[in-house]
């Protein structure tokens, strides 16, 4: 015993002290976890076991004005992932990427973006094929955290038909999420990105339901604890007439341009076409980055709604403004007669007309679209009066149509020119403006509304696309009435003179090709010179001339002559709208 160093029990006692210390550490840590932070961990354990599943709300259907469905929703499979249940990202994600045919980086990005909500499924790919669903199911054990949800996918029955009016869907982007206009939207939501889909997104989307369930660690559903059913979005009856829309697109064909057809009595848009277009179905399930890059980078701008977002030199269709301004100001009357030698002199400048029209009266001047006649009117009336009348007819400002990103166009004035170019308004500017050149820019929608205003007796309507909103639960429909914006304030005689002139355009003037048997059409052609190429071809019209039910504008980019390129399109549309059979050689007969 004596040889034991330091006493046999000292070391054992020392060991006892170490043990006591270690246990004190354990107890201290347990106190910290269970008592100090206990509530936090309790909340986390609740989050673990409870899962709020989303019950998607069916998006409202879009119908044409006669109740024919244009856009519906169909059930489709979405592959999603629960980020907190991926056990081994290195193994699961490459496998999943291969099955879904998605880059692995994109999957990681999506998961990373949803980091703040680790208990909610992150959609990876919508509308997957049955083969992919089968592959995911077969590899279920190797793909922990991967789930398949059934979600509605938007279906555009006629493909690209009326694409710019209907719009398309896309996942809400971070900028939208950050803005106050989209506060109750969440990441991954599909929202309208264009057209009616965007403007009426809140009407169409409904309310996502929730189902609170208890799940085990593998995400298997054990019990349903609560349920808040989804509420379907409301359906919309559009003002679009499927027949007229089809006729418009068929008549426009492959030419770049736009068509707007309105009901001049109330501003309902019967057809709105813009070409080239896109197929909104391509976006319905989330468009791939490559496809998006191709569409948005396309130099023909298929995503641009030329009818409302495209501003073009109006050319001779602007002569309606010049005529209206002159008649209102009294610088011309029905009896005004002007000699057209084929040229117009202003100071040292000489403006050349296409030909010498001889002596023309007011109606003939309009019918023949005689430039010298309108130069004279413009010179006499002045830029300010034309500018005022243009605004009265709804040019140079947004029409208020229920479409996003509408262009206001541009109506120049002396103040505008001084402000923008730093130059005064010259008399020559009156001459240019009189025939819709210079800086004048208008959208086809504005021109159609102008025609409607002249045709309906002076009421400036507000063009719109929605006629009725139907609640899917009550089946009650609510008629949408859009009040006109105002009146153009033209005297009855002045208006009558202008209308006679426009009627003469089709009866015996530049728009003769448009004439249809049994229908009085009033219209105006236009060929707008522009710095980018051949003149734009315009035709605007309303019919029947005495009490119009249809007003329209046709634009063909670089179509050269309005009467040749745009007129026949208008004719085909009117033929369809009024049920008039046309000769077979006419382009774009009604389907």
């Amino acid at each position, binding site marked *: 015993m004596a040889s034991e160093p330091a006493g046999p029990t000292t070391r054992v*006692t020392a060991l006892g002290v170490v043990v006591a210390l*270690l246990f004190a550490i354990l107890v201290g*840590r347990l*106190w910290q976890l*269970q008592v100090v932070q*206990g509530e936090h*961990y309790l909340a986390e*354990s609740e989050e*673990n076991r409870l899962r709020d599943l989303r019950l998607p709300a069916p998006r409202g259907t879009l119908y044409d004005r006669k109740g024919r469905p244009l856009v519906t929703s169909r059930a489709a499979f979405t592959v999603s992932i629960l980020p907190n249940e991926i*056990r081994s990202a290195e193994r699961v994600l490459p496998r999943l990427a291969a099955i879904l045919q998605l880059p692995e980086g994109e999957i990681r990005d999506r998961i990373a973006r949803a980091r703040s909500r680790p208990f909610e499924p992150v959609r990876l790919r919508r509308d997957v094929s049955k083969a992919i669903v089968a592959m995911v199911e077969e590899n279920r054990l190797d793909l922990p955290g991967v789930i398949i949800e059934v979600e509605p996918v938007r279906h555009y029955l006629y493909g690209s038909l009326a694409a710019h009016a209907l719009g398309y869907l896309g996942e809400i982007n971070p900028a939208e999420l950050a803005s106050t206009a989209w506060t109750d939207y969440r990441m991954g939501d599909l929202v309208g990105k264009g057209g009616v889909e965007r403007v009426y997104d809140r009407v169409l989307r409904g309310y996502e339901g929730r189902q609170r369930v208890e799940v085990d660690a593998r995400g298997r559903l054990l019990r349903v604890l609560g349920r808040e059913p989804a509420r379907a979005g409301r359906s919309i009856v559009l003002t679009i007439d499927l027949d007229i829309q089809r006729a418009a697109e068929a008549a426009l064909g492959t030419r770049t341009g736009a068509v707007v057809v309105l009901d001049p009595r109330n501003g309902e848009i019967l057809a709105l076409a813009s070409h080239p277009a896109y197929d909104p179905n391509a976006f319905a399930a989330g468009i791939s980055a490559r496809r998006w890059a191709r569409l948005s980078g396309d130099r023909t701008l298929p995503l641009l709604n030329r009818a409302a977002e495209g501003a073009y030199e109006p050319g001779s269709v602007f002569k309606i403004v010049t005529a209206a301004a002159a008649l209102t100001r009294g610088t011309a009357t029905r009896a005004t007669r002007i000699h057209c030698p084929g040229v117009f002199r202003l100071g040292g400048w000489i403006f050349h007309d296409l030909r010498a029209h001889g002596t023309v009266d007011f109606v003939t001047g309009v019918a023949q679209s005689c430039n010298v006649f309108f130069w004279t009117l413009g010179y006499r009336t002045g830029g300010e009066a034309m500018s005022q009348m243009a605004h009265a007819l709804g040019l140079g400002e947004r029409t208020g149509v229920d479409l996003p990103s509408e262009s206001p166009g541009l109506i120049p004035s002396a103040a505008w020119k001084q402000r923008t170019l730093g130059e005064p308004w010259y008399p020559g500017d009156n001459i240019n403006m009189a025939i819709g050149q210079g800086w004048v820019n208008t959208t086809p929608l504005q021109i159609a509304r102008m025609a409607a205003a002249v045709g309906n007796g002076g009421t400036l309507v507000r063009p719109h696309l929605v006629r009725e909103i139907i609640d899917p639960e009550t089946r009650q429909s609510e008629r949408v009435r859009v009040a006109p914006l105002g009146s153009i304030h033209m005297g009855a005689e002045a208006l009558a003179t202008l209308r006679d002139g426009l009627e003469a355009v089709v009866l015996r003037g530049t728009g003769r090709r448009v004439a249809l048997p049994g229908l009085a059409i009033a219209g105006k052609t236009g060929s707008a010179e522009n710095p980018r190429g051949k003149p734009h071809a315009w035709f605007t019209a309303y019919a029947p001339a005495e009490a119009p039910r249809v007003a329209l504008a046709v634009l063909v980019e670089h179509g050269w002559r309005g009467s040749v390129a745009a007129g026949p399109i208008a004719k085909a549309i009117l033929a369809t709208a009024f049920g008039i059979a046309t000769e077979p050689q006419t382009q774009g007969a009604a389907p």
Partner: protein
Amino acid sequence: MRGILRDLDGVLLATTVALIVIGLVVLASATASLGGPAQYLRTRLVHLGVAAVAMLAILAVDYRRWAGGRMLYLANLALLGLVLMVGVTRLGATRWIPLGPFGGFQPSELAKIALILTLARHLADRPPPASVPAFMPYLAHAGVPVLLIVAQPDLGTAMVVGAILLGMLFVAGARLGAMASLGGLALMGMPFLWSVLHDYQRRRLLVFLDPGVDPLGAGYALAQAKIAVGSGQLWGKGLFAGTQNLLRFIPEQHTDFIFTVIGEELGFVGAVLVLALFLIWIWRALRISAAASDRLGRLIAGGVAAMVVFHVFVSVGMTIGLMPITGIPLPFLSYGGSSLLAMSVATGLLLNVGMRRRRRKILFEEQWSDGQRDHRQRRTV
């Protein structure tokens, strides 16, 4: 015989029984989601029967007659070698020797006990090591079985052996300066150790240092364990009411992670109660060590104490983020026959040493100083 029964440590025995009973209750809850506890409890009771017999056998014969012979050491190596050859691989580790209807046997559990015994004998007969070179025979002694255990791989058990070695050297009276030097050498060996670790082992260590490294992979078990224990709060969610347990958010919740069930369902109060029972158990082990009649007994009891301390600290510590995730069982509580058998043998050893503490003079004379190793000649009355 009555004489030695008087010195049977009743507190140790009672503590052991208490831990085992708590273990049965917690096991029932931990296996409720694994197809019902009936089958597990039945197996556990069979294991308990075997363990009780083993404990009685161990304490029946004076440890000085049989503890820690060369044969035991070789048999231990043979078993550890056998497992590498015929062992069953589960979860990437070859730890089990299949035993037909009895399931499997895990030699590394008993290897710890065998090592305590042989090491105690080795140390008892020699002067306390006083320099780093003097440690070498003991390092070699423990090193061979450790290598076999690491090869399975079973890093946790290898670390337990390290703790046992350390504890026994300390109790044996090794010079503290020399032990510190040894520790320094061990630290220098760390980079090498790192290089031989498996990927999953490295990840566990990294996750321990920063749980955010891989929250979806290796950090999962740690995060879920902490949620389970923490959510138990002061009084626990109640037996059979722990959602982390019942919904199987914890991997291995009935074996290595059994403490999460205690923490979640019995709360801070239950967890501290269990820790208190362990503390009493270890206190009794140290008391037996201090009172032992000879170095052999003192070292055996000290080794057992070191082993249990390490097991408890790591097994509990890993569920609360104090220790890296290591698959080692919580004594008496984790489901597993080999571990229970090892612990009952350990308890038997303690009782054996404790019972015979007054027989020292008559039975035995320690003469390690001249290096004599012929106890057998001097045994008995």
